[in-house]
């Protein structure tokens, strides 16, 4: 059990309006308070395979650390993600030869009163707390790197031609370090995991408004967010997973 808290989880993945197939994968397990999302890339359906391998690998192999584990669980989770990275990379080499295949990863789990967020690439995790949305992850993206180097200005980031270039992904080579952070959970927190098909299209303010809706029908909120991304083009696959911190009964 998790110290009186659990995650209620819903999710939705959508091909969007332009692409002919969906390379995103999502999954969750309320029993382990675990949610995961991956955005694959690579030709000839390789992206679908990479993102599915990441999500299925996490769902099959992730074990919730014992109660009151703090920093120790970060190590085992990092090892698991690294192991899945290597599996995807070996699979790519065996089946695709020189062609690259890779995937981002965004994942959260609740253990006691701690939420752990792991991510690789530009899939994001946001948190709504007390009506205010906050981005909890920093994209592993070339644009962010160029801003840090001073090569481009922050206000030009959204317009940059390198907007869609990521600097970390699962499956691209042996060894991958996920970024892992822990936060104290509060009942009522809403965690939003999403692919860039959503975050490129829907502003933080619009996400906040959708999440802070009084209705609190979370499946409907997920649908609303996907619809909003489609209404402004839907060029990319769009995925949303919502995990709501709730009092355990």
């Amino acid at each position, binding site marked *: 059990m998790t110290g009186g808290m659990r995650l209620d989880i819903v999710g939705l993945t959508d091909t969007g309006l332009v692409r002919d197939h969906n390379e995103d994968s999502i999954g969750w397990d309320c029993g382990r308070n675990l949610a995961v999302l991956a955005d694959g*890339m690579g030709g000839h359906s390789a992206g679908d395979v990479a993102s599915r391998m990441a999500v299925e690998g996490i769902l099959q192999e992730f074990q919730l650390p014992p109660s009151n584990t703090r920093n120790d669980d970060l190590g085992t989770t990092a090892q698991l993600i690294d192991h899945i990275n290597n599996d995807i990379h070996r699979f790519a080499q065996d089946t695709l030869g020189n062609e690259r295949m890779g995937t981002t990863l965004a994942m959260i789990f609740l253990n006691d009163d701690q939420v752990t967020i792991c991510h690789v690439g530009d899939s994001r995790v946001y948190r709504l707390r007390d009506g205010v949305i906050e981005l909890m992850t920093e994209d592993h993206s*070339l644009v962010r*790197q160029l801003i840090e180097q001073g090569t481009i200005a922050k206000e030009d980031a959204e*317009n*940059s*031609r390198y907007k*869609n*270039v990521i*600097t*970390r992904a699962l499956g691209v080579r042996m060894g991958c370090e996920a970024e892992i952070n822990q936060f104290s959970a509060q009942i009522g927190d809403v965690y939003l995991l999403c692919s860039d098909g959503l975050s490129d299209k829907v502003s933080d303010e619009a996400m906040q408004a959708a999440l802070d809706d009084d209705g609190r029908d979370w499946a409907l909120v997920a649908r609303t967010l996907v619809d909003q991304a489609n209404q402004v083009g839907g060029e990319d696959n769009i995925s949303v997973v919502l995990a709501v911190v709730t009092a355990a009964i």
Partner: protein
Amino acid sequence: MAKLVHSQAGKVFGEYPLQEGALRIGRGLGNDICLEDLTVSACHALIEVVPSAYMEDVNDVFIIDQKSTNGTIVNGKHIKRHLLKHGEVVAIGQHDFCLIDEETRGLEQTMIYIPDDE
């Protein structure tokens, strides 16, 4: 290959293929693109085409203002140096230059660049 489409008041005047190197734009006769327009400075702006430091087989196209009197405008803003992307329009005096760069369209899809020291 990337190209620059030159237009004025919506009417196309010509196209300039962009090879690696520099292209000078201004009112003076020594420019690669010479504009008869009193609002354009003698040496107004420079288009610089350089190989991308991050992606193979992709060139970066920069527009650099040469301290012109009336400025060089991209997306409604005066710029000094700006990395152009496909479809962006540079306004110089009464003239517009639109970058058509099919190579960068590929970057609309997510790509991976892993730095060696990552």
